[in-house]
């Protein structure tokens, strides 16, 4: 995975997520919606086979889009971690 900066504003960010697809982007997009300081979050993959996702985040003043992204990633990580532990427990039985 690699991130490329495309455009940076005061409260917005447009990045390319090289090497990733809907699996990660859609997950993060939905997670960003839970953040109240996020005004807009979306991504597009211009070609289904060779497209590189472009991810856009816009936030309200006070929280940077990078911060919102980091928070979203952490929230999802925690959610997955909890689920994985549940599965581990269930498998041990």
């Amino acid at each position, binding site marked *: 995975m690699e991130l490329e900066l495309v455009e940076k504003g005061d409260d917005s960010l447009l990045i390319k997520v090289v090497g990733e697809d809907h699996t990660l982007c859609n997950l993060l997009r939905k997670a960003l919606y839970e953040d109240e300081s996020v005004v807009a979050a979306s991504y597009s993959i211009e070609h289904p086979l060779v497209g590189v996702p472009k991810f856009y985040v816009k936030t309200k003043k006070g929280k940077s889009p990078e911060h919102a992204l980091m928070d979203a*990633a952490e929230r999802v990580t925690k959610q997955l971690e909890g689920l994985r532990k549940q599965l581990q427990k269930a498998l041990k039985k």
Partner: protein
Amino acid sequence: MEFILSGANPAFANSIRRAAMREAPVMAIDEVEFKTNESAMYDEVLAHRLALTPLRTPLKGYVLPSECSCRDGRCSKCSVSLTLKCEGPATATSGDLKSTDEEVTPVSSSVPIIKLEKGQRLELTAIARLGLGREHAKWQPGIVAYKYIPIFKVDGKACDGCGACVKACPQGIISLVKEKPKISDPVQCILCKACSEACPPKAITIGSDATKFVFRIESTGALPPEQILFKAMATLEDKCKEFGKLVKKLKG
């Protein structure tokens, strides 16, 4: 394997499904060297059939060729070689594949590769490697699908207890309790809405619960289904962590 995922959203469920189908590495034959092929089929047809034959994948011990230090994908850390030698009259099957690692063997020994007539010989060496489902369908560990849990609502005033919905349900899970329809097992519902269409007073509405999903994992046999799920969640977790780190780096 079947389980219910609750407290999630559709994006989360779909990401788990995608990760399970695309990101859980399994073994599959990736390269075939033919020594002799006197069968009626071309080398590439046989290679294709061999590639589609699922192989048991050990959980530990192998790495993806792209992550291996050998770089050519031929060392014992990232590849297994299997040999097949068969002479007609016989049918060469997946069971004839002799593996150098007893943990990497065909899931089923009775997949026919090619039928050989008398005197026809087939001898080959196949190299199996770990791979991801996003690269080729032969590396898909199985079929992962989910569906919503229904929200079955009956307008108590409009319902006249005629039982049309009971007859209409193809799954046979609706029954009348005190003259009002009830779903006995929501997991079985296929959300076809036959009940609401069949209802003369239009008393039934079927919605779907977007926070609860019934997942089904059907493995090809390469990995146990719970391991597919486990690997999917682990890779998704790693991706999120990596993403977070990269964003931090980007911010500087």
